[in-house]
């Protein structure tokens, strides 16, 4: 029954797991009576000091019930909840100034508590006193900046944005212990430099990371400890010239704001506005320096997209960029099976998933059914770069050939669309497998295992998790992979992890698997601080 669930998804929600306790199995056979009620009692303590915390609001959720059970700790931090139906529960706790830990080892298995029939469980639940970061923001002249938004980056959750006061001071609070980047981002009005005739020049600053870096990669990470304020985290904004990207839209409907612009940036997508004009030109102003992939989409029903264009924003305007609309491609094709075992069993589908090779955040996905003769037809695939895969696990994609061009591996480049070309996909049954156990110093613990192929630059992200820490990735293509473990929690934010990938360098495992090979690798789950 200890199966691992593998999912290829963008966002994973933690599901409650099936339990196999023999006591419960016996209880289920006794159909006439409901199982004997259980109870949960104990205390919530401060993970630093060990003291009980009063007025903590505790809620227990189970999968069945729409209503949660609740309780509040007394002056000594104690509570009792009885009677409770035996079940698997997820515990949540709330108290201003405190945070729930996100790792196993505190309440049995992460935030889960299992209550069996008649069990009177006694627990000590722990909350971490939150940490904080404070400092001041200065502009390039050394003047304090008022009302600028400051945000922490790192960890699991979306962190609150705060604004500086009139002395440029800010404070980020409610932080779990760990390392964070801190960034200050001025509001940008999407206009070219303002006209001035008084001899002065408009002062413009870019989004800047502590202490004074334009990119998140070279930013210094600030260490936060439980219940402590890390002070003096001052940010000096970097002055940049006001530059824009200008060009023309080819093949799109003309009109003011008739297209949407998508700008992918190494730090995620940026939401600076671009303007398209009735004469078919466009302008995007006040971008921070860096490398972007720019594309336009429009035409509503027609689903036109331009092939993404890479632009580098520096000191000068980027001119004459042409965004050429490419109609979605219709691609007929067939599968070639290197061997019989590569053939599908039921409901076979070809899947193409869009990737951005540099920035690692996937977008759309298209599917096509494969007929018994191995033929398929992909309908309406927008321009872009794709990873090709199939819906069954006993085969992997060796190569693809579109028109006359052959691509090794699974990458299908449709940046320029495709007209009247047929796609051949070669499959082999020599799939590989990587499996193992997630462990900490004491032994196996539940945790997510993350698998990222090396060659495609982190474009595909797979997660597996088993109830006792075991994981398995069957049916993968041979090649080189990166692997690491993540603690269980509410969900996985793929984009946040991809952006912070270097944070896991210490624990990252590198694994090579050949065709038909099965490799076992245990993954270390590091304990969080606090």
């Amino acid at each position: 029954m200890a199966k691992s669930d593998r999912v290829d998804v963008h966002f994973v929600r933690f599901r409650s797991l099936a339990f196999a306790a023999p006591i419960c199995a016996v209880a289920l056979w006794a159909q006439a009576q409901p199982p004997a009620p259980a109870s949960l009692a104990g205390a919530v303590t401060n993970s630093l000091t060990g003291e009980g915390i009063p007025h903590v609001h505790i809620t227990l959720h189970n999968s069945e019930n729409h209503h949660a059970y609740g309780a509040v700790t007394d002056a000594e931090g104690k509570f009792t909840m009885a009677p409770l139906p035996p079940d698997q529960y997820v515990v949540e706790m709330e108290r201003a100034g405190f945070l729930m830990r996100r790792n196993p080892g505190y309440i049995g298995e992460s935030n889960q508590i299992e209550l069996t029939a008649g069990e009177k469980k006694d627990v000590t639940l722990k909350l971490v006193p939150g940490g904080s970061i404070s400092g001041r923001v200065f502009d390039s002249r050394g003047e304090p900046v008022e009302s600028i938004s400051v945000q922490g980056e790192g960890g699991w959750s979306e962190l609150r944005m705060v604004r500086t006061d009139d002395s440029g001071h800010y404070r980020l609070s409610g932080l779990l212990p760990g390392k964070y980047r801190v960034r200050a981002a001025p509001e940008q009005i999407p206009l070219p430099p303002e006209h001035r005739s008084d001899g002065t020049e408009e002062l413009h600053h870019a989004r800047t990371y502590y202490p004074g870096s334009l990119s998140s990669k070279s930013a210094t990470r600030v260490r936060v400890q439980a219940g402590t304020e890390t002070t003096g985290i001052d940010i000096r904004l970097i002055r940049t010239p006001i530059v824009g990207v200008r060009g023309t839209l080819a093949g799109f409907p003309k009109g003011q704001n008739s297209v949407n612009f998508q700008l992918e940036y190494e730090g995620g997508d940026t939401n600076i506005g671009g303007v398209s004009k009735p004469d078919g030109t466009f302008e995007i102003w006040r971008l921070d320096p860096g490398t972007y992939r720019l594309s336009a989409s429009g035409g509503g029903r027609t689903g036109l997209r331009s092939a993404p264009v890479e632009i580098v924003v520096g000191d000068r305007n980027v001119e004459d960029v042409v965004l050429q609309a490419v109609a979605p491609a219709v691609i007929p094709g067939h599968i070639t099976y290197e061997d019989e075992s590569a053939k599908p069993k039921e409901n076979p589908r070809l899947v193409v998933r869009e990737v951005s090779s540099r920035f690692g955040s996937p977008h759309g996905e298209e599917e096509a059914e494969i007929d018994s003769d191995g033929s398929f037809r992909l309908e309406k695939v927008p321009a872009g770069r794709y990873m090709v895969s199939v819906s069954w696990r006993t085969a992997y994609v060796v190569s693809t050939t579109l028109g006359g061009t052959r691509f090794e591996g699974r990458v299908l480049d449709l940046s320029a669309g495709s007209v009247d070309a047929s796609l051949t996909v070669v499959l082999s049954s020599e799939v590989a497998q990587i499996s193992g156990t997630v462990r900490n110093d004491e032994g196996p613990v539940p945790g997510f295992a993350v698998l990222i192929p090396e060659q495609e630059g982190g474009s595909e992200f797979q997660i597996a998790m088993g109830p006792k820490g075991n994981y398995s990735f069957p049916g993968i293509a041979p090649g080189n992979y990166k692997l690491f473990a993540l603690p269980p929690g509410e969900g996985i934010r793929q984009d946040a992890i991809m952006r912070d990938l270097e944070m896991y360098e210490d624990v990252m495992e590198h694994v090579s698997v050949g065709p038909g090979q099965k490799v076992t690798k245990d993954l270390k789950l590091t304990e969080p601080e606090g």
Partner: protein
Amino acid sequence: MLVLFCAPAAFAQPASLEGTAVNGLNGQPLSGVHISLIGISPTGIRDAYGSLSDGHGHFSVTGVPAGMYILFTEKRGFLYVQKKKSGVPLPSMGLKAGEHDTEFKLEMTPRAVISGRVVDDSGDPVENAQVHAQPVSKESEPIALTFGEDTVPTDDRGAFRISGAPGKFYLIATPGGAHDAPPEIRLDGSTAIVYGQTYYPNAAAEEQAAPVDAKAGAEVTGIEIHLARLNPRTTPHLRISGMVQGTPPGKQHASVWIDHGLKFGDTTIQNDTVAGDDGSFTFHDLEPGVYRIWTAYNDVDRHLQSQPLEFRLEGSDVVNLQLNLAPGGDLSGTVEIAGEQPGAPKQKRTVRIGGSEGETDRDGAFHLSGVMPGKYGVGVEPLPENAYVKALTLDSVTVLGDRLDVSHGIRGSKLQIMIAPGGEITGTVLDKDGQRMLNSVTSVFLVPAEGEFEQSDRSAAHVDESATYSFHGVRPGKYYLMGYDLFFSGLEIEGPENIKKAAAAHGELVEVKEGDRIRRNVTIFEEQGDGKK
């Protein structure tokens, strides 16, 4: 101030704004004030013109084209506050062609600060509550340009700090977290306390709120907001549940939507959920009122939908609702264009109803399948210039207009779409001096003088860069034509009722007959003072 009326070159003559930035409290000149005039147009913002005040507080913005501008200022510790005088929610000013203001006094107001914290019944701090400073009298309160600083979250000590324009404010705290979380079960006899939106100091309603007077350059501290409990009787607790019938086998589930409102026919989308494996669904914690519910199923091959059900929810739950998925119906018919020769081959046109479309053949006949129950606007493309959908005849019942009501489903129905030549109205929008309304946010409303007015894209038109507007394919009838400018015409008019009243009061009557081409210049109406209608 010199304004040239007749010379066309006047439109090209730039304006300028020069003067001194001063501290509004003590009159002292302020250096380092960044002033920026951001141009406004119907389609968004245009160029910006700016200046930085020198050691004497002097600034100069020149070469500014005539038009309307948002006045944006920056100086640490200060705000530019303006009395609200138009529909624009930001400080603004208009410059006429050749206007040169050399003595403008830019009064900067030192920021006012309100700080405090939010606590619950036990006196414990509340983290992540949103605190908002709401002006006591919205209409007469002055406006300033701030980046959403009037609403801030409380930190880990429950503390908040709001800085902005001076004035009298209600401080409103809204607890964070899920507001639709169902009431929890307590096993020790205690009651789970649910807190709701609270006005300082501890009131659930504005009537008991105490205003806070925030003065320029000063900080009001110690504003402790004691959260008020949400009245359990007002907590929504009703339930709607039932089953979806007719889901095709497979992994895909149907989705169920409910709209909620106070009266039949007037509901807005409230919620949606996915039916379970057996087709069951439940909506929890609903308020009494009118509900409209339907379900839809979509996969690669099929689109199924149920007929919407409308009913009233009062004191008790509604359970065992049955929603039946069915494929859409077939609709065939003809497009008849007035004036076309009966025998001649007809142009191919596309008929669109809801999500279905079909093309007409040489006889003008079309066939649509998969038309779901509902109410739709019927579209035909392309239409001859200025043609409009005059009437629809569905199975021998004729309705004027382009709205097709097939809420009760269709079964092999026949639809005749009658197209006739409509009218066209074009012209220029002028100000009260007879000048074109350039570089502003100007629009023209076309409101029927009689009968129902349904606000739509066809009832208003923005002007283009040369202040020209146009309406095409106008249904014959009597209308009010009203020119409206966001800066001059007073507060924004919202809602079909108010637009109708304003049009009758300020608009010009125009009668449109089939085939008319009407040229009519429109003058915007200007409101003075507090912008009241």
